C-alpha cells in the first residue's frame, strides 16, 4: 500500500507534460514509457491483432513529440492520449481497408491460434465474432468503456462525443450482442 502511495505521489502526467513541452527529454521519455501500455491496449482492442497493435503503438510514440506541442491542458493528458490512440488505430483500419477490402480487424488467424493454445476457444471465438460484428464507432466505444473501464463521461471526453451518444452506443452494442446470441441459439 505504502509503495503504491509513493508511486502515486511521484509525478503527475500533467507535470511531466509541462516539462516535456519545455524541452525536458527525460520527462518526455517517462511519459511515453508510462503510457505505452495504454496505446497498445487500445490499438489491440480495436484491431484484434498484436503485430498491428505494436505498429500503431510505435507510430503513435514516434509522432508524439510533434503532437504534444498541440496538446493544451484543456483535457486530462490520458484522455487526450486515448483520443490520439483511437484515431491512430482507426486510421490503420482505414488504410488496411483501402488496400484489402475484406480487412476489418479481428479477422486474422492469430486470434484463433492463440485460442487453440489457451483452450479458451469458445470465449475467444465468440469475442472475435462479436468484435468483428461491431462497426468502428461501436468498437471504439467498447474499447474504452469495457476494455479500459472508463465511465461514459470519460469515454465521451476521449472521443469528443456527448455522454448521451456514448450511452446510446453502448445500448446499441448490447442490442447487437443479444442479436448475436439469438443467432447462436438458432444455429444450435
Amino acid at each position, binding site marked *: 500500500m505504502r509503495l503504491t502511495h509513493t508511486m502515486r505521489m511521484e509525478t503527475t502526467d500533467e507535470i511531466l507534460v509541462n516539462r*516535456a513541452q519545455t*524541452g525536458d*527529454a527525460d520527462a*518526455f*521519455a517517462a511519459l*511515453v*514509457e508510462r503510457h*505505452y*501500455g495504454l496505446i*497498445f*491496449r487500445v490499438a*489491440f*482492442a480495436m484491431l484484434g491483432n*498484436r503485430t498491428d497493435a*505494436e*505498429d500503431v*503503438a*510505435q*507510430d503513435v*510514440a*514516434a*509522432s*508524439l*513529440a*510533434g*503532437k504534444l*506541442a*498541440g496538446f493544451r491542458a484543456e483535457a486530462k493528458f490520458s484522455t487526450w492520449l486515448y483520443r490520439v490512440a483511437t484515431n491512430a488505430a482507426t486510421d490503420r483500419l*482505414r*488504410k488496411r481497408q*483501402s*488496400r484489402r477490402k475484406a480487412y476489418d480487424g479481428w479477422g486474422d488467424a492469430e*486470434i484463433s491460434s*492463440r485460442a487453440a493454445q489457451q483452450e*479458451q476457444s469458445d*470465449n*475467444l471465438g*465468440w*469475442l472475435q465474432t*462479436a*468484435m468483428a460484428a461491431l462497426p468502428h464507432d461501436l468498437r471504439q466505444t*467498447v474499447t474504452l468503456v*469495457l*476494455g479500459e473501464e472508463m465511465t461514459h463521461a470519460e469515454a465521451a471526453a476521449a472521443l469528443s462525443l456527448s455522454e448521451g451518444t456514448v450511452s446510446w452506443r*453502448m445500448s446499441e*452494442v*448490447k442490442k447487437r*450482442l*443479444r442479436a448475436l*446470441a439469438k443467432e447462436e441459439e438458432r444455429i444450435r
Partner: protein
Amino acid sequence: MTDDLKRLKAALQSAMPPIDETAKSRAVALAKKNFGARQETLAAARLTDDRPKERGGYLSGVKHMLNKIGLKPALYATSSLAIIGFGILLVNPVGFSLPTPERHTLSKPASVQKKSLTLPAAAPVMEPEVIVEDNAGDVTMAYDMAEAPSGLIAGAIAPPSIEQATRESLYAPNREQFSNAPTNPLKITADEPVSTFSIDVDTASYAYVRSAIMGGGLPRADAVRIEEMINYFPYDYAAPQGDLPFSTTVSVFQTPWNANTKLVHIGIQGRPAATLDRPPLDLVFLIDTSGSMQDAGKLPLLKQSFRLLLSRLNADDKVSIVTYAGSSGVVLEPTNANDKQTILAALDKLEAGGSTAGQQGLQLAYAQAGKMHESGRIGRILLATDGDFNVGISDPEALKKYVENKREGGTYLSVLGFGRGNYNDALMQSLAQNGNGTASYIDTLSEAQKVLVDQASGALFPIANDVKIQVEFNPAMVAEYRLIGYETRQLAREDFNNDKVDAGDIGAGHTVTAIYEITPVGSPAIRNAALRYQPDTQPADASGELGFLKLRYKTPGQTKSQLLTTPFTDTNAATDEARFSAAIAGFGQLLRDKKYLGDWSYAEAIALANSAKGADPFGYRAEAVTLMRLAQSLSK
C-alpha cells in the same frame, strides 16, 4: 451491466496479449529520438524567435487562414516571413543532419562511390630528343604538370577538405550520396570528332550548392553538376519558329578563362505553354512522412510548397495524395483542384513518423495514377522526400527498372528533394531521369516558388521527349574540345539514332544550355602535341564551319524521333544570356575542378556575372553573385 456486456468485457480483457518489452523499448527509443530532433529544430528556430514555432502560433494561424481563403497577395506577404525563418535555419552549419542510427542499410560513404582515377588530359609525355615543337607546346606541358595534381584532387579522388571532414564528423552520420562522374576530358577532334549527350533540365545541384554555401561550407566537388547549375537559370533565347517545339541558338565567343580558346554555346528555348490552353493534369503527390521529415526544412516546407502549387492548378486538374513511411497509404483520393479545402485539410493532417518504405509508396502512387488515367490528360507523380528508400527495396537498380517500366504507361515522375543529412541525390536523380521527370531540390520557400509556381508549366508539361544532342566538330577548324558538365548524361555515339535509348525531356518554356570549350587549330592553347608515328593528315575543308549540330527529339506520346540539324560557324559575339551562363560554368568549375581555368578565379567570375546580369526579373542572378562572393571568402 448486462451479462452480454460483462462477457464481452471479460473476453476482451483476457484476450489482451502481454506487452512485448522489446517492442515497447523500440517505440520509446524512437519517440525519444524524434523528441530530440524536434528540440534541435525548435532551438534553432528560437535564434530569431522565442515563440514556440509549431502549429497554433498566432502568425501561422493567420497565415493558415489567409492561405485557405486564397488571398494570393496576402500569401506572398506572409510567406516572406516564413523565408526569414528558413533563412536563419540555414545559417546553422550543415543544417540538421539528424542521427538516424537504425537506418544504415543502403548507405555507403559517398566518396567511395563510383570513383575512378582519370588521367590528366595531357599526361606528361617523354620529351623527344629532337626539338621540333614550338614554344607553345612546352608552355602547355609545364602548365599541365603543375595543374594536374590539383585537378585530380578536385575532380577524381576528392578527399573531403579539412573543413568538410570536420563538419561531417561533428554531425555524423551524414549519409548524403551524390551522383557524378569524372570531369569530361579534353578530346582530340581528329581522333573523336563526335560528342553525344542527353539534355538535362534538372536544377537540384544548384540548390544544393547554394544550401551548402549558405550553411558556411563549400559543397563537395561531387555534389557539383555544372550543367544543372547553368540550367537553374532561365535564359531568354530566341523564341521557336513555326511549329517547332523549341529553338536552337548557337553562338561562339572567346572563353573568359582562356584567351586562346573559344566557347561554343548552345541555347535551347522551349515553346512557352499558354497556361490557359493546356491539357488537364492528374497529379499524385507522393509524400515521404518518415520520422526524419519532421524538420522545419522538410515536411512543413513541403506542405507550404504544395500549397503554392495548388494556386497554379486549374479547376479540371485532379490531385491525389499518397504517403509513405513505415507503410504507405492513400491519404486523399483523386480530388478536383478547385476543392482546395479538402486538399489543404489532407495536407495539414500529414505527420512525420516511422521508417521509409519508399518502394511500396511508389507502387501505390503509380496505381493511383493508373486509376486516374484518362486520355487527353497528363499524369504525373511528384515524389517529395528527404532521402533514400530504406525499407522494402535492397536494389536501387530494380527500383529504376520499375520506374522505367511505368514510364511506358505515360505517367511522368518528378522528384522534389528536401532537407539535408541523408539526401540521396544519386537515387533521386536517376529516378527522375528514368521516370522522364525533373529532380529539384527545395531548401527555401522561395525555391518552392521558383520550381512550383514561376516555372510550374515547365515542370509539369513536357513539349519534347528524349532530346539528344550530337555535335560533330570539324577537325580542319577545331583541334580539341571538351563538353562542360553533362558528365552523367553522356551517350554512346550510336545511341543518338536509337529511339529506344532514353534521354532528357524539355518542358514548356524550359531553356537548356550546353557549352563546349574548343581549341581552334593553330591555337597556342592546344594541349595535345602531335604524335611522332601518326600521319599528320590535316583534312582540308573550306566550309569554315566549326561543327555540325544535330538534335533529336520526340513529340510527347510518339515513339519515333525527329531530327533537326544546323552547321555553325564562329559568330564571335555573345549575348548577356550566353555570357552569364559562361560565368556560371566558370563558377561550377571553380567549385568542382579548376583544371582548365588557369589563374581565372572567383573575382573574374563575379565580374563577368555582374556584367551579364541583364534584367534578372526574379533576382536569381543577383543571388548567384552573392553565392560566388561567399564561396570566394570560404575558399580562402
